[in-house]
């Protein structure tokens, strides 16, 4: 029998605070995490704002050995994972098992270590790359560090799916549990703000000068963010056996690829439409049962128009509330959909829709029901989490209130 996959714990590192409570409180209050970049000088680029994580001290969350090993990205991942494990009420020792896995996503991984090594090479020559530092760089180290910290002995994997990485990781982690390969999976994604990557987004013309205004007629682009969102997923049997509280169920997920352009979304939104419909039918639901959409909503002209087209194509005239928290926490790239997944589950638990701030003038190309400027309240049994990414990736994960969905075997029979 295919098990239900439950979310039993969550952790967040974000520009709006550390931990799910601080993060969620700031979101529903509509606070912005944007500030002047402090980790490097961006003035030459003409864009100086980002949603940077402030006051993060690795040693507050990691052991001394872990903090020494990890770069900023892996430290974010591990800190969020530790919060999630505690939130799940799991004893860390309980994860020392072949049935415990780690699946995380990212775009660049340990970008600070990479930048440090590359800078030494460029300026001083290859012999300046320290053999002590080199092993600390690999895009897959955040998963290894996390598995190492908790002693997980099952599958350990990193899925670098750019800005859809969180959704890819959560979907894959759920598959491991459904396939009977794991009882518990630590999953999510992490990303850090780094100078080269920031400059690249600026050169692509994607970065807004002052603020991110998803779906607004006058939107000017995204604000780059950073952080981590991590969840503990468990099979229902495992969660029930230890008396855990289920926060939500991972219902289903959909994947597609535009196969169109490496950075621009395909204008018809066919890939997003496919991924959204797939997530819904794999959860055993119909489109009429979705209560809220967490948008990818980057604030770029192309993304928001295409995403709106897809929403209209799937939901028709039904005005499903939609919001983009990137207007508050910025675009956290690989971590975006993982942090937003945490927000989706909070919506399910509170019935609150976080706002899209900066929404002033409706855009006819974005004819969707934006939760504008102040948090909304409403039915929140079923929530979908959109992500679109470099490479033409489209990934959507559906979360539902525990016991809201039909049993997995019934879903499979229907599909």
């Amino acid at each position, binding site marked *: 029998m295919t098990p239900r996959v439950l979310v039993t714990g969550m952790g967040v590192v974000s520009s709006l605070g550390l931990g799910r409570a601080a993060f969620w409180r700031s979101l529903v209050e509509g606070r912005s995490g944007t500030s002047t970049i402090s980790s490097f000088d961006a003035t030459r680029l003409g864009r100086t704002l980002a949603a940077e994580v402030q006051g993060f001290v690795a040693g507050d969350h990691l052991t001394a050995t872990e903090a020494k090993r990890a770069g900023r990205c892996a430290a974010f991942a591990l800190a969020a994972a530790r919060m999630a494990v505690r939130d799940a009420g799991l004893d860390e020792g309980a994860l020392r098992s072949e049935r415990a896995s780690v699946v995380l996503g990212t775009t*660049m991984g340990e970008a600070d270590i990479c930048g440090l090594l590359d800078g030494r090479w460029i300026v001083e020559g290859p012999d300046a790359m320290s053999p002590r530092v080199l092993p600390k760089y690999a895009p897959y180290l955040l998963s290894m560090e996390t598995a190492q910290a908790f002693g997980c002995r099952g599958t350990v994997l990193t899925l*670098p799916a750019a800005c859809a990485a969180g959704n890819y990781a959560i979907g894959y982690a759920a598959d491991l549990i459904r396939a009977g390969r794991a009882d518990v999976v630590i999953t999510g994604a992490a990303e850090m703000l780094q100078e080269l990557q920031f400059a690249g987004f600026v050169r692509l013309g994607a970065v807004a000068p002052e603020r991110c205004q998803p779906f607004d007629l006058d939107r000017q682009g995204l604000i780059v963010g950073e952080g981590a969102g991590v969840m503990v997923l468990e099979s229902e049997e495992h969660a029930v056996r230890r008396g855990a509280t289920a926060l939500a169920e991972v219902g289903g997920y959909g994947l597609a*690829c535009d*196969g169109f352009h490496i950075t621009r979304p395909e204008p018809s939104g066919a890939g997003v439409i496919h991924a959204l419909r797939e997530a819904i039918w794999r959860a055993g639901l119909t489109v009429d049962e979705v209560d809220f959409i967490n948008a990818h909503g980057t604030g770029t002209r192309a993304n928001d128009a295409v995403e709106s087209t897809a929403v209209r194509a799937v939901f028709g005239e039904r005005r499903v509330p939609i919001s983009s928290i990137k207007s508050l926490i910025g675009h956290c790239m690989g971590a975006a959909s993982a942090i937003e997944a945490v927000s989706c589950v909070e919506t399910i638990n509170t019935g609150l829709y976080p706002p899209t701030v900066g929404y002033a003038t409706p855009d006819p190309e974005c004819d969707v029901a934006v939760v504008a400027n102040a948090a909304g309240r409403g039915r929140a049994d079923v929530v979908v989490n959109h992500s679109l990414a*470099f*490479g033409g990736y489209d990934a959507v994960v559906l979360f539902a209130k525990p016991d809201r969905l039909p049993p997995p075997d019934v879903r499979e029979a229907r599909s």
Partner: protein
Amino acid sequence: MRPLAITGLGVSSPLGLGWDAFRASLAAPPGAAFTTSPTSFSALPHPALRVAEIAHFDPRPIVGDKGLRNNDRLTRLLLVAARLGLEHAGVKRDGAFVAHGPAEVGVCASTAYGSLEAIHELDSVARLEDPRYLNPARFPNTVINSSVGYVSIWEELRALNATVTNGPTGGLDAFDAASLWLDAGRAKAVLTGGAEAMSEGLWQAFRRLGALDEHPEAWAPGDPRSGGLRLGEGACLVVLEDLAAARARGAKVHAEVVGYGAAFEPAEASAPMVHVSAGALARAVQGALAGVDRARVAMVVSGLSGYGLLDGPERAAIAESLGEVPVRCPKAWMGETLGAAGAFGVAAAVGWLADGRAGDCAVVTSVGFYGNASALVVRRPE
């Protein structure tokens, strides 16, 4: 694991472009691919150092030249392997789909350090000139999954597109991911494998780590006297399909993938992060062989590279798990291809199993740098 069919193999490698050239090279003695004079970056600073690269690699005869200008080497290696693999499987002919449709074919490929070349290129501009001069058309190459993304663009593949990164084991882990997605009906065929490109950055990093072979007279993967590895490059993408569906469409089944296992062993708290675990590989092999008759195992196609740090635990785990079984070392032919290595191991297994010797299964093994290990079982089709 439900058996899956390998219906086509696409290879871009120093052993040749295309399955036939690759397979023929594996039938010859190893060593011919290694050079002291690479063409992809300036000459090696030590006369004993060797790499296996595709000299003067030119993808244009296979994929044409339109749109290649801003693609990096890794992307070009992948584009060649994808085109060859889809044609070899009979999914495409002359660039058009003849089996399945665009929405039914996906890609899942591994790379360990795929974007380093682009990161160094753009970082050099930013640091030595000005970040305002970064070429935005080259920026996507710094994002790890972009190379695999380009495969879907070039081949018009609309089903899932995924990149796996897990060091040397990633090329096997990609098969597991593809298998889960095929089982779930997310695609009817998935181009599956891995790629790694030769770059000066990668080579310098391994040199600084003291991991490279400097004593060519003693170099032999699996031989404890070997002093290090030799870097290689290439892309290997096989077309993976449901076995029954592949047979139903009349596809030639080159091999079956029938088992997979993966495991992680944490290091002791105070031990270095880099650690290689024989125990993890033993568990991975055990998992991969669940449901497979061990008497049918004809060979191990290992990840042995000549680097003792990795080879020692891998040899120990193979001996413990499988006893006296022949151990083959594809890296003796093509060097250490990191994120592509597992996929090349699968391709080598397909070629060697076709020799028809006793037993019809090969266990492909790989150990990672940080305590992870994976194994895959490939079977000659009945």
